[in-house]
């Protein structure tokens, strides 16, 4: 009998371990080096200033839309702040799953007094979206595997003769369809007009079909760096920051192919339906984490461009390696000679349609 009492007491203790007195703030992000840069630039200093706040990292950004939908359906939102790409933010905002904010109201002005909405400018693509970084999806290649003929053109992906070997591409239509059309001879400014039609979608898939057997499809940002490091692929697309850490921090024989890099935005949304006092806590964090200095600080740890104009001049050297970060930013003039503008509206409208086709094509 005493045994069972002891056990019961033990269970209660176990169940309560860890749930200390601090207020928990659950912040959802992407994991890996990216979450680490947020931890160092935002979370750690914020928790130091607010010892009663305990930030919990959740690495579910990839499933954010699904999980927010389920939470919303159940009326039980357990997340406080979610890091999503702009297109997901648009979708969440459209579906009423994200809270609309007045950017000038809740965000800090620039040091010179410029309103937040002007400081972020066009990057505020949705009323629910608080931009954080500009990143790009670009291609990295093994410099030791291309000989004297390093690729300079995005169409190297499709050129299996000059560059034989596997390449890794993301397991979704976005970016791949655009690159396929570009390399099938569609002029840059007509890509989305072509992609809007059934024939255009077929054309893009047909182009991708030419390399289907040579592609390893990735779904997590770390896949391509891992595959490049292991020599499993000769080239592969991923986020530029992941390639940066592979090349500069891990010293791997990999180079960037900046051609036709696709700019995208990443930022915060606040889930809809949070109780007022939680919204207040989130906004307090957000005011701090998106100010000019904090955004510039993040760039010390990862090569993504800060979303505020006022942060750009503050971007300095890498926190540990001491190298200048500016030349590694996707926005650096040397890197952005030929960029591709990603059309959010288009993908918000056509994502379901094209994704269904792409996925069906993939398993066939």
């Amino acid at each position, binding site marked *: 009998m005493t045994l069972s009492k002891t056990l019961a007491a033990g269970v209660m203790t176990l169940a309560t371990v860890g749930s200390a007195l601090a207020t928990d703030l659950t912040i959802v992000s992407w994991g890996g080096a990216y979450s680490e840069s947020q931890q160092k630039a935002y979370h750690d200093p914020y928790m130091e200033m607010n010892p009663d706040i305990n930030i*919990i990292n959740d690495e579910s950004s990839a499933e954010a839309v699904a999980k927010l939908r*389920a939470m919303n359906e159940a009326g*039980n939102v357990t997340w406080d702040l979610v890091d999503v790409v702009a297109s997901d933010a648009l979708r969440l905002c459209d579906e009423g799953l994200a809270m609309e904010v007045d950017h000038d109201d809740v965000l800090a002005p620039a040091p010179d007094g410029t309103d937040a909405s002007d400081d972020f400018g066009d990057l505020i693509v949705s009323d629910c979206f608080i931009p954080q970084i500009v990143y790009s999806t670009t291609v990295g290649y093994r410099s030791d595997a291309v000989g004297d003929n390093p690729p300079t053109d995005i169409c190297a992906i499709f050129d299996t003769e000059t560059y034989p070997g596997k390449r890794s591409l993301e397991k979704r239509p976005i970016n791949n369809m655009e690159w396929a059309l570009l390399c099938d001879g569609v002029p840059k400014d007509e890509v989305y007009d072509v992609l809007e039609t059934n024939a255009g979608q077929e054309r893009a898939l047909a182009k991708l079909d030419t390399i289907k057997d040579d592609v390893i499809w990735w779904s997590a940002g*770390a896949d391509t760096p891992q595959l490049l490091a292991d020599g499993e692929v000769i080239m592969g697309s991923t986020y530029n920051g992941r390639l940066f850490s592979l090349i500069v921090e891990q010293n791997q024989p990999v180079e960037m192919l900046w051609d036709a890099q696709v700019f995208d935005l990443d930022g915060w949304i606040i889930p809809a339906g949070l109780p007022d006092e939680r919204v207040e806590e989130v906004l307090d964090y957000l005011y701090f984490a998106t100010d000019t200095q904090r955004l510039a600080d993040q760039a010390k740890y990862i090569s993504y461009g800060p979303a505020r104009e006022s942060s750009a001049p503050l971007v300095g050297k890498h926190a540990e390696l001491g190298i200048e970060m500016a030349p590694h930013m996707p926005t650096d003039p040397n890197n952005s000679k030929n960029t591709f503008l990603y059309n959010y509206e288009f993908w918000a409208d056509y994502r379901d349609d094209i994704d269904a086709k792409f996925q069906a094509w993939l398993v066939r």
Partner: protein
Amino acid sequence: MDMNTLPSYASTGEKVWFYGFRVLCGLIFFFLVAPIIVIIPLSFNAQNFFTFTKEMLAFDPAGYSLKHYQDFFTNSDWTGAILNSIRIAPVATLISVSLGTLAAIGLSNPHMPFKRLITAFLISPMIVPLVISAAGMYFFFSRIGLQGTYWGVVLAHAVLGIPFVIITVTATMVGFDRSLTRAAASLGANPITTFWKIQMPLILPGVISGGLFAFITSFDEVVVVLFVGSSAQKTLPWQMFIGLREQISPTILAVATVLVALSILLLTTVELLRRRSERIRGLTPG
């Protein structure tokens, strides 16, 4: 044909067969353990990747390091995950074991109605594809407010552990002599006393090994926790899954090595328990 020894008069063909078969079995055993063995040296890799480096192959000490172990024991992601696993697995195990043992005793009663059907139902959590259980729990637990909570994960893991407890406890009940409980009852012991004093000590090995299975089920489970849990319940397998998908880090191999050591420990325990159980019940000579 006795496979164990080769008589001195064996023909050449028999010799070839004898040794060939042993080599074949050796290869299959190697297949079973090779993947587990190969990760152990890789967990000491000084590089951050999953491949053997030239230094490692040359047995150069510079190619080896303990840094992944250090990361495992000091990185808050990993230590937090261990803590969560330790908070979840024992509680889930306790629920599986207590409810499962009671039910197994009921099921072993020869007069139990619908025995076969109920047993089949109670073992079904082991049979139903995890992704289906996980998806169902994800939607249903969301609806009743258990999704993303500690108790949600505990209950989900408890139900997954139940089949193991039922199987192992009913197995020990097979040899159980019911006249013992009747004797105790006729001597005036109440059913609870009878249970703790007579039945429990005899089925204890089954209960413990069922408990170990239930524990390892929870400790090793990743699909359900990914759906039902939230980051506050991030368990060790979840963190390993992230490690495999999100980060380039052989820390996961260090974790694996530690877990293999733990498995060997648990396995030895189970084997000793089994021997004890069989000795008590006099079922086996060896």
